[in-house]
């Protein structure tokens, strides 16, 4: 297989160059997966991690003591001097995520039924601060109920009633043993693969194609006793070999890092899904390599295509946060379906046909994208053969 061998030779020459990318991507995706997994955990477990807050009261009263006790369920209090600069810095570097200030005269006005808000300064869009807001409002609204309905209630009585009322909690039952494996890491890592794998595949394969599409080389292959079909097939085979090797390196890396969770059925499906994606990615690489002329154009197209599809289809920003327009555009890219399949796999606890089916159909779409890319590129190559 002379064409195949030639391709392997060209690829080997590119190894040092590609290796830099592979290593950088692996490190970046691991860091991202670890941090994303961590923040994911903080938001989502019932036993919430306590948030660090600064509680600054300009006055003391039983009501405020009660509020502080109640908040103590959800927060750690960090002692900080009441200086704007220090507080802002603490907030900036996330030593605290919430500053609550009780203005002077609050208790008296509250008991008189006058409205006076507490002042907060927070990091925007953080879940933990939303919980603190909720707790404060709940406490004060319930307190107001007592004050309105039971005139003359003392602060001490009020606080003890509130303490009793607010200790009520819902019974939560999780009948399924939560999956033993913690799949968040794999989920994020495999999602980021849409970025790293795609970049490497497109870079490596298009570099290969540029060299292969050299006019003289093409003419030489053209006059050899090798049919076009055979040459093309060998060429595709070489591309797939490259794709599979890159895929293997990345998957093995993930399995090693997350070894304790690797032996689950979920991981098995992750691997299948990423395998199909690698196939599709090599189709994309083949396509871009057939369309683009010159190395620089390739890296330009690669970056726009890869970064664009990753941003829109939920690789970097979780799907929940994306707008419907973004998702509609994204559904024309394979990354969207790949990420969708991965997110479903991460949720699987049962592996009956009914639960697997949607996952498989997402994978099938990714596969079809791959076939389409290969078919399109073959058409383009055929048209350009004699130009």
């Amino acid at each position, binding site marked *: 297989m002379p064409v195949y061998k030639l391709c392997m030779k060209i690829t080997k020459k590119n190894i040092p160059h590609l290796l830099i990318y592979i290593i950088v991507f692996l490190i970046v995706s691991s860091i991202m997966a670890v*941090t994303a997994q961590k923040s994911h955990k903080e938001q989502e477990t019932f036993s*919430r991690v306590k948030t660090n807050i600064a509680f600054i009261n300009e006055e003391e009263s039983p009501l405020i003591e009660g509020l502080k006790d109640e908040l103590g369920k959800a927060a750690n209090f960090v002692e900080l001097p009441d200086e704007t600069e220090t507080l802002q810095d603490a907030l900036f570097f996330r030593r605290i995520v919430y500053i609550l200030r009780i203005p002077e005269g609050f208790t008296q006005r509250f008991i008189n039924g006058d409205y006076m808000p507490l002042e907060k300064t927070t990091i925007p869009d953080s879940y933990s601060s939303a919980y603190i807001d909720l707790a404060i409002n*709940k406490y004060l609204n*319930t307190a107001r109920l007592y004050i309105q309905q039971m005139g003359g209630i003392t602060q001490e009585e009020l606080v003890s009633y509130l303490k009793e009322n607010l200790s009520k909690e819902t019974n939560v039952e999780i009948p399924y043993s939560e*999956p033993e494996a913690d799949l968040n890491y794999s989920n994020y890592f495999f999602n980021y693969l849409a970025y790293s794998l795609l970049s490497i595949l497109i870079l490596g394969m298009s570099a290969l194609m540029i060299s292969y599409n050299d006019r003289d080389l093409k003419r030489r292959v053209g006059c050899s006793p090798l049919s076009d079909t055979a040459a093309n097939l060998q060429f595709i085979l070489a591309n797939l070999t490259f794709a599979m090797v890159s895929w293997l390196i990345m998957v093995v890396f993930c399995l090693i890092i997350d070894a304790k969770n690797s032996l689950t059925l979920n991981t098995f499906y992750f691997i299948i899904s990423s395998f199909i994606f690698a196939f599709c990615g090599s189709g994309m690489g083949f396509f871009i390599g057939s369309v683009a002329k010159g190395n620089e154009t390739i890296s*330009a197209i690669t970056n726009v295509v890869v970064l664009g599809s990753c941003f829109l289809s939920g690789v970097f920003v979780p799907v929940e946060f994306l*707008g419907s327009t973004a998702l509609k555009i994204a559904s024309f890219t394979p990354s969207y379906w790949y990420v969708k399949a991965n997110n479903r796999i991460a949720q699987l606890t049962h592996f009956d046909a009914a639960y697997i089916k949607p996952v498989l159909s997402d994978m099938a779409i990714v596969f079809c994208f791959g076939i389409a890319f290969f078919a399109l590129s073959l058409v383009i190559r055929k048209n350009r053969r004699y130009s």
Partner: protein
Amino acid sequence: MFAHIFNYRLKCLLRDKITIFWTIAFPLILAIFFKLAFSNIGNQEVFKVIDIAVVENSQYQEDQNFRLALDEVSKGDSRLFNITVATAEEAKKLLDENLIKGYIIVDNQIKLVVKESGLSQNIIKSFIDNYLQTVSAASTIIQNDPSNQQEILKSLADRKNYIKEVTGTGAKPNSILNYFYSLIAMACFYGGFFGMRETTDIQANISTLAARINVAPVHKLKTFLYSLCAALLIHSVEMLALLGFMHYVLKIEFGYRAGFVVLTTIIGSIAGVLMGALISATVKKSEGLKVAAVLTISMLGSFLAGMMFQDMKYIIAQNVPILSYINPINLLTDALYSLYYYDNLSRYFLNMVFLSVFTILATFGTYLILRRRKYASL
């Protein structure tokens, strides 16, 4: 002489389509992607209605208050839940198929059954907690004074928000902005491609054009400085165009100190171009390797400044603070953010001082490498 070199260099650089692509088209495209991807964060739309089920049984039918409370939050456009009333088996099946996030059983107590813990599950739980606690408070009051049930219901309905956001500064904190600011910083440092071209075209052992320029009877550093001016002009104009596009088309806020924002961007552009020059002067190999070095350094810098993942910036600031002061992209991002967020300019100036020191070092380094280079043979 200046006009001659400057003019020709300007023409030369403007015709380099690839560099123009990387320095202006690519950041513009990324900005549009950012806008598309982040436009929903912080909006009400982010919240998606949660599908839940309630198990139909006699206790549920009898518990009128709970039914009312559930009805209240599952009506209208801003509703919290989509509720299905189902038998116990149906509810279980729905949960199995991931069609609902959880179901509620009203027994002696109210119980929530979920499949896993998660944000939606937490919201359901908070809702029920809240209900239970309010019921408990109301019943305490009624025990003491059974006469005023109606009034209790009325004041229950009237919930007040007791918290006011105080930023301490005029600006509203906005985490999305950091993505756009770091994008501007990245674009500034992509100016490194221009800097790279400048050094490449002055080193006779790297390009043939440089060999031609070197035989001209003009002082080499003068040629370099004049053509660098052309690169700086093009890149600054590009960055201002990017800034304008973000502000006027994508409606990104930059605070009220427009003059400082423009100044920061221009200084950032100078820093970027010179960093490219330094990298290119240091890496004496092929052009491909130089491009890779400029790309990797600016991408890595942007990553650490939080362009791909905003929390990265804080992780660095907390754990490796030194890195946030030597990463020029982070300095630039942070400078823009301080301009937006803080009333006080001290943080901004600190960033700018570090950035200027960085730029001066880069200039000096490039000068040291480029000066007095002679080629015996090529």
